[in-house]
Every structure is written in C-alpha cells, then in structure tokens.
C-alpha cells in the first residue's frame, strides 16, 4: 500500500456498490460451505493425488533437510497428497516472489508469511481465512490443544478482523547470549533488568573491549537493533501500535532510545552491520549479544569453543519482560482449489503438532509452537536449556502488528536508531519524525 493508498481505500469502501459488496459476502459463504464439504471429501474418500506447493525460505543449514524429512513423513501418512517445496534464499526474496506470483495469478498453494505481509495479502483477497479449518470438527484443533499453543503465538494468528488467517510454523524470539567467563572474571552477575544491564555493560567496557554490538538496521532492512528496541518499548511500558495506528514515540520509546544512546556514548554499545553482535561476542571483544534464539548455531560457531557462552532471557523493564517474536506463519493462497486448501491445511497442522514441531525445534533451533512439545523434548532441553528459556518467552513475545504499513513503521524506527546512535540525534526528535512518516504510511 502506498501512503496514499490507505486514503483511497477508505473512500473506495464508502462508494462501493452495494451489490458488489453483497456478492462478495455471498461468494465467501459459498466458498466456506464448499470448503467444509471438500474437507470431508479430501479426508474420507479422495483417491486422486492432490499436489500442493509450499513457498518458503528455509534454505540454509539444517533447515532444508529437516523440512524435507517432515514433508516426507507427512506424505507417508497421506499418500494422496504430494507436497512440493519451493525454497527461496531469504525472506526478502520470498516476499518478492510471493508478490510476483500472486500478481501473475499463479501463487503457490501455501507460503511462509509475516503478519504484515498477510495483512496485505488479505486486503487483496489473495489468501483465505483459516477459522473454518481451525474450528472444523473433523480436521480442526481441539480447544484443549489450542490452549497449549503459546499465548504470543496464538494471538499472532489473527488479523484485525478477528479471524484466524495464519498458522504458526517457524517461531523464535529474542534472548540474551553472554560470555559467562567474562562476567565471572569481572565478578559480575548476569543482568536481569535493563538497569542492571547498563551497569554491567559499562563495567565491562575497558581496554579495547565493550559490552554489546548491534545493527540498527535501515529503512529498507530493519535488523536486530530495531527489534531489540521494539522489545524494550514493551518492557518499558510502551506500545507499538494503538487503535490500528503506529505509536512509535511513546514516552517509553523515547526512554528506551535514550537508554541505548547513553550506552553508545559510554562505548559499551557499538554499531555495525552483518550480525555484528555475534561477531563481537565470538571474538571475545564484547560480552553480550541480544539476538534471536534461531541464531544459536551461528553464535556457537562464532565463539569457536573459546569460552562458555550462555543464554538468558532478555532483561526486564518496569513492565516485566518485553520480547519480539521472529519467524513466520503459513498462509493459504486463495487460488488453491478446495481440495488443495484442505490438503494444505492438513500439512500446516501436521507441522505444528507436538512431535513435528519438537523435531523441527531440535533440528533447527527454532522454538516449538506448543507447550505440549516440551515433554517430548526433555532430553534435548537437558543439554540445550536455552530452548526452554526462549520458548517460555513466547508467552510475552509479540509478532509484527498485522498491518501492511508495519513494514514502513519498522523501517522508520530503524531510521530513528541510526539518527540517534550513529549520528548523535535527539531521541524524542528522531522518534517524532519516524512516527510522522509511519502515520502517513498508515493513512492517518
């Protein structure tokens, strides 16, 4: 959506012909009816092979073989369904490909999507709501199972219209990696609050070493620094959005950015690009990295076994822990036939079930989307305790607000970070500027 698009959308909605709107409603009802009918057909009697395609960005490291394996298992259980994986190198390309494929009228059956992408897709009627499938008696999810999905993950499946449009897949959130040897040597405790973090960070900053490196991100590509800032806003008692509009310059946000500016000024915080946090931590130059739990293998590789790297939850603020969810959900594109939709739903549900999500978590470092996976992972968690820490944070973690304009808002927040941390700007001023631009993009 362009900043201007929103305005026109609203005026369009007002003048839209009555019969057109009603026909959409009728169409939706028919489609819903057809869905539930097809759902029975697909599970009960369908003999013909149903082909579905999944556009995803799980191409690196252990992600690819693990998803391949899960998909094979699914196909073994559902001999009439064939799943084609279309792997893209990263989320940027994935998003461009999905957009291009929708524009060309040939989207895959399902695809990974962030909340704000899904919002844009739903606006364009390019994806379908999943509420019908989730509530379906035959192939849905029981209330008991639903309660087991982490709170943050569950809330993340809805668009503002109150319907479920996404189903969780690869979820992660932010944790604090730290060099335990360094802290022990300096006689410092692992910080639990942001106030303690600043004290410890400054105490560690001497003789060519510092506490933490991060990447502010840019307008076009927000990075870890941007996301940690978002987590801090929640911890400090602020909001990202309110009433469907961005709120980037709450007092909490100004305080958080001021806090980071102070760290930067003291030399405890350094700014870089291309995952500077893990690089500095691994090189033994800094003591902390605040990053996603999915980056654990990379953090480990960077440290090279030189010191004991440990993981703790993000520090808390006066509002407790704030955290930001990373990773995506899966959506079903509306071009799919009813049989394909039903098959796709079964596949998506399969991936989120305890056994599979546990396997996925153990293999890739992402988090299980449901609590029921934790007992299955007992042995793994014994050797990888950080997984449990991060998984519990999924209760408080928040995903991208489900609005298409959030891409711009997040980018503007990154710009504010650059203005303040790299170029000495004033936090309140920088955030006000970011808020104004985000607001324009949100059409308000």
């Amino acid at each position, binding site marked *: *959506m*362009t*900043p*201007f*698009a929103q305005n*026109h959308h609203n005026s*369009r909605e007002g003048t839209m012909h009555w019969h057109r709107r009603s026909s959409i409603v009728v169409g939706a009802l028919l489609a819903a009816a057809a869905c539930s009918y097809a759902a029975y057909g697909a599970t009960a009697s369908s003999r013909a092979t149903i082909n579905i395609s999944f556009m995803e960005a799980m191409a690196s490291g252990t992600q690819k073989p693990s998803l391949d394996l899960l998909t094979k298992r699914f196909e073994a259980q559902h001999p009439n369904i064939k799943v084609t994986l279309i792997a893209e190198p990263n989320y*940027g390309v994935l998003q*461009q490909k999905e*957009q291009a494929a*929708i*524009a060309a009228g040939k989207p895959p059956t399902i695809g990974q999507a962030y909340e704000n992408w899904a919002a*844009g*897709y739903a*606006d*364009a*009627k*390019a994806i379908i709501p999943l509420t019908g499938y989730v509530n379906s008696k035959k192939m849905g999810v029981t209330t008991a199972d639903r309660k087991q999905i982490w709170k943050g993950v569950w809330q993340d499946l809805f668009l503002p219209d109150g319907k479920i449009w996404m189903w969780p897949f690869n979820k992660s959130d932010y944790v604090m990696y730290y060099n335990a040897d360094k802290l022990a040597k300096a006689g410092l405790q692992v910080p639990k609050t942001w106030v303690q973090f600043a004290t410890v960070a400054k105490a560690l900053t001497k003789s060519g070493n510092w506490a933490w*490196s991060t990447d*502010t991100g*840019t*307008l*076009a*590509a927000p990075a870890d620094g941007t996301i940690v800032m978002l987590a801090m806003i929640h911890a400090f008692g602020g909001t990202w959005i309110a009433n469907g509009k961005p709120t980037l310059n709450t007092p909490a946000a100004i305080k958080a950015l001021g806090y980071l500016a102070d760290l930067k000024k003291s030399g405890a915080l*350094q*700014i*870089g*690009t*291309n995952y*500077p946090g893990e*690089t*500095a931590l691994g*090189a033994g*130059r800094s003591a902390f990295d605040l990053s996603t739990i999915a980056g654990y293998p990379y953090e480990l590789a960077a440290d090279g076994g030189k010191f004991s790297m440990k993981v703790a939850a993000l520090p808390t603020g006066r509002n407790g822990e704030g955290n930001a969810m990373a990773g995506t959900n899966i959506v079903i594109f509306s071009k799919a036939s009813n049989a394909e939709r039903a098959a796709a739903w079964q596949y998506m549900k399969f991936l989120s079930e305890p056994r599979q999500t546990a396997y996925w978590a153990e293999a890739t470092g992402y988090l299980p989307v449901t609590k029921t996976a934790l007992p299955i992972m007992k042995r793994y968690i014994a050797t990888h305790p950080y997984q449990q820490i991060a998984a519990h944070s999924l209760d408080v973690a928040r995903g991208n607000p489900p609005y*298409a304009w959030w*891409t*711009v808002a997040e*980018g503007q927040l*990154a*710009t504010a970070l*650059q*203005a303040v941390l*790299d*170029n000495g700007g004033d936090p309140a001023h920088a955030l006000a500027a970011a808020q104004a631009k985000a607001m324009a*993009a949100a059409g308000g």
Partner: protein
Amino acid sequence: MTAVDAVVRPQRSSRRRAGRIGIRDGRFALLYLSPALIVFGVFTIGPALFVLYISLFDWNLLNSSLSTFTGLHNYRALGSSADFWHSIVASVYFVGCVVAGSTVFGLGIALLLSSRGLVRRVVRLAVLTPYFTPLVATSIVWVWIFNPQYGLLDSLLRMLHLPMVGWLQSTTWAMPAVIFYTLWHDLGFTVIIFLAGLATVSTDLREAARVDGARYRHEIRDVVLPQLTQTIVFVIVITTIDSLQAFTQIYTMTQGGPLQATTTTGFLLYQESFVFFHTGFGAAIAVVLFAVIALFTLLQLRVSRSRSQ
C-alpha cells in the same frame, strides 16, 4: 582477413545484376531489426509502458481489480516527498563522483598502462580483474574491509593511532565508501575503453610533439585529448546511465543507509517497489528517473556534438 582482401578477392562471379537488392536497400530493414525489436518489445518496452500506465493508479499489485485511477497523484506526491528530493541529491553525489572518477582515473590509468612492459601487464590484470568478479561477492568483501571493529581499514587506522571510522555507519563516509567500491569494481571497463581509444591516437603526432620539446602534460592536453573526445563522451554517457541505475552494491553494502545517505533514486525505486510494495508510487519514480536519464544523455550528446563541430 582485411578489408582489402575482401574487396580484391574475386567474389562468386557477378550474376543477378538486374533487379537484385542493393546493399543499402532498406526494404528488409524491419526484418533485420525484428529479432531485437521483439525482445525489446516483449521484455522492455511493453512492461515499461505498463509501468507508465500503473503510475497513474493507486495500484494494487496483488489484485489489480482493486486499483483506483488517481491521475497524477503519484507524481504530485513524488514532488512533495522529501525522501525523493533527498534521493536526487544522493544520486547527483553518487553519479557525479562515479562519472568524474571513472573518466579521470580511467584515462589516467590507461595512460599509465598503455606502454609495454611486464609490470604494466601485471598491473593491467590487477586493474581489470575486479570488473570480472560478481558484484555481490566483492561488495560483501568490501563490507568486511569497512567493518568498524575488525575491518582492515580501521585496523590500519588504529595501528597508525588515528581515530577509527564506522565507514558504512556514518552519514559522512558511507557514500564515499560506496563510490570507492564502485570505482574499484568498474574502472576496469573504462580503462579498457580508454586503452582502446589511446591505441588509435596517432603516434606520429605524439612523436612530433615530443620532438618539438613539448612537456608530457602538454602532449596529453594538446595532442592526445582532442583525439579522444569521442571515447570520452562514450565513457561519460555509459557511466552516467549505469550509475544512475546502480543498485546491487548499495543493496549489499548499506541498504540505502545510514539515514538514507546512500539512497539514490535508483535505490529508492527498489525500496518503494519491492520493500514497501508502493507499486504506483514506485512506477512514478521509474518514469521520472527515465526522463532524467534521457535528459542527461541528450544534453551530453548535444554538448559533445557542439564541441566536435
């Protein structure tokens, strides 16, 4: 085979003298042009006209039936967008430096390397090689060299006890760093073109100038440069067009940052079209960018033509 051979060698005995098609006959010109025109038509001109069309809409890429005609709204929005004007300034900075650098250094290096010798041959290889390496691979290498904590450049500064610079993080230094990389990568091309041009400069005239006791500087200014006008114009036009559209190195090195310091109009176009998916607005930027490039090219050709007359 030289031209003389071709002419002197008896061709297949001359037949069909009457009624045959002359070499310069234009009746099949369109046929000869058609392969190129079909490719251009399908993959460039057609899509470009489509872009022109959607620039007049609030375009919904995902569902074109939801698009609304807004006339010149996107263009008006562009005119009042601070980001756009900022990108124009960044483009002028980038293009100006890259074009000037490519021309001056390209010519300078070509002059240095035009004579024979082992050293020069090796150096020539060194200068031309970057041009043959993928932009993605080598720009990421430079990101590493520019790294503020462990990069080569800052390590050298630190060893000299000079203040270290966050090259790609600083609004002051990011653009020079990207320009430096671009010159490093692309100078090979201009050097080849200038070496080629230099080979055609009359050696007699240069000798004569030297016998007259002209200093090297004067020899270059009075004898070499005037004969290279064509080549110089060619280099300026090509590098202007290329650098106005430069994208990959900005994408990998700075993502347009910090604070839009390296967001040229070419990168803004990418950002609006492919990060924010403001399709209509992005289309309007493309149309304006096209007009700017066309204007520049015409201007340069006009200037060079009036010069050579």
